[in-house]
Each structure stands twice: as C-alpha cells, then as structure tokens.
C-alpha cells in the first residue's frame, strides 16, 4: 500500500482517527491511574468488562457495538465497586482484590463466550474480537462515540483539574478542605472505565491496560508537571494509535491492537532510556560525572585544609605535598585550574579566592544549586 492510498482510503482513515483518539483519551486518563498507584486497575476493569459484553449479546441477541459496550460499561463498573468493597470491607490488599476480580470476571466472561459459540445461531460469530480487538471493524459511528467520550472527559478534567490534582497528591488533606473525595475518586474511576470500554473493540480485553499505562509511564519520564504529563501522555497515545494502524495496514494480516500496544511500548523504552532527567542513560552519565566531580572536590577540600591554616590563602604550596593524598593526578590539577579554583606555577599551586569560597561551601546544603 502506498502513502497516497493511505490518506485516501476511507476505511483506513476512519480506523486511524479512531485509534488516535483512543490513544489520546487512554493516555490522558491513564496518567491519573498511574499517579493513583492503580496501574493494575485498568487491567482488572478491562477483563471485568468481558462478561458484560456476553450478557448484553445474550439479552439482545444482536451485535450492535453500542449495546455491547454498554454491557461492558456496566460490568466494568460492577468490577470497580467490588474491588472497592473488597479493599474497604476486608483485610485483603488492593492487589489481591484486583487479581480476584480480574480472574473471576474474565473466567465468567470466557464461560459465557464459549456457551454463546455453541448456540445454533449464525449471529454469534465475531464476539471473540473483543478478546484481542479488531480495529478493522471500526466504523464511523464508533469513532464518533470515541470522539464524544473524549470530549466529555476532557471537559470534566479541565473543570475538576484542581480537585483531581489535590486528590491524587493528598487525599486526606483534600477531605479536610471540604472536598467530597468519594465523588472525585468516583469521577476519575468512572472515566477510566469509560475509556477502557470504548477501547475494547479496537485493542481488546487482554491488551487494553497497556493502552492506559504505557503512554502515561512514558510521559512521566519527561516532565515534573502534572499538566505536561497528561498532555504528553495523550500525544504519545495518539501517535501509538496512528503509527500502529499505519504499520499494521502496510503489512498484511498484522492485527492492529497488538501493533499499537507495541508502538506504545517503544515509547516507554525510549523514554526510560533517553529522557534527560529520569532516563537510565543520562542518570548513569550523571552518576559517573558526579563521581569525577566528587573526586575533584575532595582534592580541592584537601587543599582547602592546607590553605586555611595560613593567613594568605593564595600562598603557594608544593604540589609534592598532595602526593600522599589518594585520587590526585596531573589531570585533576589541570581540571582544578581550568575551573579557576587554583593556579599552578611550576612545582607549586596556590588557591584562588573563588576556589577557597567553593571549598568552604562544599558541604553546605542550605544553598540551592542554581
């Protein structure tokens, strides 16, 4: 498939738009899930949605995607309530509750799916697309639904931004200020469930949580601001959708959902390696640099110890007296000179006023470094 066809093909355009919007909303709401330390909640919800789809089909007997997603929404929400109930009413921890609900609902959903498949009715074929998702079945009305849901959740997020941030950072404090934390908490959970449900058709029950977590985890690496994190996560999510769709469209028979998730995973890997502040590579480089820097400062401090016994700080001292000190080399001396902390004349060094002050404040934590 060539590039012009990509932009003119109506079906492909619909799918691309759908996966982009889906990626954006998932990234946006996923940020909240990650910051609430409820990364696995998405996984539990998406699995919990499966029996809802099956039950909705059994009741209506039709494969109208809106009806099926409504079923998914209901059973996803029931899952969330049960998880909450288990964690508040019993001694079980959240991870246990998530695991229980996930496997219980998924097991029940699978049971219903196999039962439906045994029915002598030709209509049931294709329900299993909700397991792994099938972007190719996206039609205009599906995308319209996604855009509507995204618009609403964006509006709610902007409206309650302050409340969301407060709740995520310090829930007890939010309570004392008079905010109804149960309402805010419920609102966030509701929109996370909504985002998951509208993604089921495209990405599927099994991989859906990756759509929620991967863009958010990647975005966290690049910023220390909540607003930037949410925007970045939405962008990463949208690009994962677009690239994933493009890749799967250019290669025959590559299913779209998994490719989108893999693209999102690439965003995560790149972010974890290369982000300037939190990335592994730059962290390692900084570590090595800091060690060298520390070595240098150690030498400087040793010199400072010698110098401060004299009235004149710039009085020359023999380089030889440093030899007993480990870690001193010609290189460190020239580095120190480069930084203008010392000057070297022949076999002697003398400290500058700048170097003296640096050494004196070396272990003072109360002065913020620029």
């Amino acid at each position, binding site marked *: 498939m060539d590039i012009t066809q990509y932009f003119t093909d109506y079906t492909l355009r619909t799918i691309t738009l759908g996966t982009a919007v889906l990626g954006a909303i998932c990234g946006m709401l996923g940020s909240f899930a990650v910051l609430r330390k409820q990364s696995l909640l998405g996984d539990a919800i998406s699995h919990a949605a499966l029996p809802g789809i099956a039950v909705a089909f059994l009741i209506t007997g039709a494969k109208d995607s809106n009806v099926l997603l409504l079923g998914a929404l209901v059973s996803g929400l029931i899952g969330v309530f049960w998880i909450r109930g288990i964690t508040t009413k019993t001694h079980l921890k959240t991870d246990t509750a998530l695991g229980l609900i996930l496997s219980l609902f998924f097991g029940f959903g699978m049971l219903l799916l196999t039962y439906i498949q045994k029915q002598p009715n030709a209509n049931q074929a294709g329900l299993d697309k909700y397991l792994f998702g099938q972007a190719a079945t996206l039609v205009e009305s599906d995308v319209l639904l996604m855009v509507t849901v995204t618009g609403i959740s964006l509006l709610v997020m902007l409206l309650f931004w302050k409340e969301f941030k407060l709740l995520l950072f310090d829930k007890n404090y939010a309570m004392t200020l008079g905010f109804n934390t149960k309402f805010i908490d419920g609102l966030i959970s509701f929109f996370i469930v909504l985002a998951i449900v509208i993604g089921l058709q495209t990405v599927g029950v099994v991989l859906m949580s990756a759509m929620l977590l991967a863009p958010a985890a990647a975005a966290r690496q690049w910023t*220390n601001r909540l607003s930037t994190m949410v925007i970045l996560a939405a962008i990463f999510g949208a690009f994962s959708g677009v690239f994933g769709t493009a890749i799967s469209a250019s290669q025959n028979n590559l299913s779209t959902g998994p490719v989108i998730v893999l693209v999102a995973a690439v965003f995560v890997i790149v972010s974890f390696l290369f982000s300037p502040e939190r990335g592994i590579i730059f962290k390692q480089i900084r570590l090595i640099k800091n060690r060298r820097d520390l070595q240098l400062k150690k030498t400087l401090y040793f010199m400072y110890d010698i110098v401060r016994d004299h009235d004149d700080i710039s009085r020359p001292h023999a380089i030889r007296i440093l030899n007993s000190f480990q870690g001193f080399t010609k290189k460190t001396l020239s580095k120190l000179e480069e930084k203008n902390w010392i000057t070297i004349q022949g076999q002697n060094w003398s400290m500058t006023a700048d170097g003296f002050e640096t050494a004196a404040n070396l272990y003072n934590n109360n002065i913020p470094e620029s």
Partner: protein
Amino acid sequence: MESKIAVAVDDLTVAYNYKPVLWDIDLSIPEGVLMAIVGPNGAGKSTLIKSILGIIDPIAGSVAIYGKPYVKQRDKVAYVPQKGSVDWDFPTTALDVVMMGTYGSLGWIKRPGAKEKKRSLEALEKVGMLAFKNRQISQLSGGQQQRIFLARALVQNAAIYFMDEPFQGVDATTEIAIINILKELRKAGKTVIVVHHDLQTVPEYFDWVTFLNVKHIATGPVKDIFNDDNLTKTYGINYKVAVQQ
C-alpha cells in the same frame, strides 16, 4: 486567656477492626494555646487528630470547633499531615503544593489566581523556602518537605492548626525554624495542636500538653501537669530520669 474553648471533644471513640484505638475521649482545648499531644506508639495520637478533622469516622462521640460541628467550621482549621503520608515523587513543584492550601477557600472548580499565588509565596518565604519555589518536590530534603507542608497550612490562614509530627525526621535547623513559626502563631492568638514524640522538648516548646494512651489521661498547662505521675500513667514506666534536666 482561657475564656473560649477552641476545640471540644466529647465521648469520642474510634476503633479499627473491633480494637478500640481511642476510648471515650473527653477533651477541651482553650483558644490560644500551643499544645503537644504525647503518648506511646499506638496511643491514637494521629487518630485523634484525624477524627477531629473528619478523616476518620468515629464509632461514637462528637467534636465541636468553637461550639459548632467541624463541617461548618472548616475555614477555621488547618492541617499538616505526616510527611510520609504522601508520595513525594508526584509531578509538581513546591509552590504548587503550597497553593493547595488555598483550594479550600476557593471551593469547587474555581482556579487559584494571582492573589492565591501571592499568599503562597509569602508563606514560602515565612518558612524560608522561597528559593525553592520551583523545585520538584522529590528533590527536596525531608526537612524542606516538612516546611512546604507547614507553608501549605499557613496559607489556609486558620484559627486552629493541627499538626501530625512536624518534627519527625527533620534536622535541628528545621526544628528550630518550625517551632519559631508555631510560637509566632500562638502569639497571634492561634491555637496550635501538635502530635509530638520528644518528651525532652515538651516544656521548652509547648505551654499545654495532653497525655493520651487510648484513653485520655490528662490535659492542662505544662507547668501544672507535665510530671512524673502523668508520664508514668501514660507510658507505663517511670520517666522521671528522662524528663529531669
């Protein structure tokens, strides 16, 4: 001075899983005192503060702030939680955390503006953290994080301050800075209630003290009731040696 009662606790009982944490607490705190709540681990000190603030639902009992229920008096109360109760890796800055202190008076949906920012910067200055206003909060030391929490409460401009172990894990400089601010608050007529662990500093820092160990043991001026008898009742062992200086 002891004319008005700032906080009145009546028959307060709290339990986690059948085991009482606070048992039938009656407590009156007069306006304008700087009071320590002391007691051993598990005595329910934090729980007492949290139940007064409505974070924990008590099984029985009631709390009155200046004679009215807490829900009607929120604007008169500020809270400094334990530093360890939040995730300091949260993507936000020191100034942003302090601004959260203005959210209560703003109410739902309304965003903080220039006025709120100015007040927050003033609070940051008061705790000596203005130079760190744009710092990501994970890059602050424990003492600095505690100061940020204090600044957030100062922004609330309340009449009563509840603080949960504000001296925990902070260095001497920060401890002195914090206690000076607390003493300033008292001078301005505010009531300050602090969960405190270091018995040695109680007479030096506070003018009132409450002894608590699940049950309420005693409340009163430090000079009257901070004695061996009450310490023994609270901690179960003789503390004479520890507190005599």
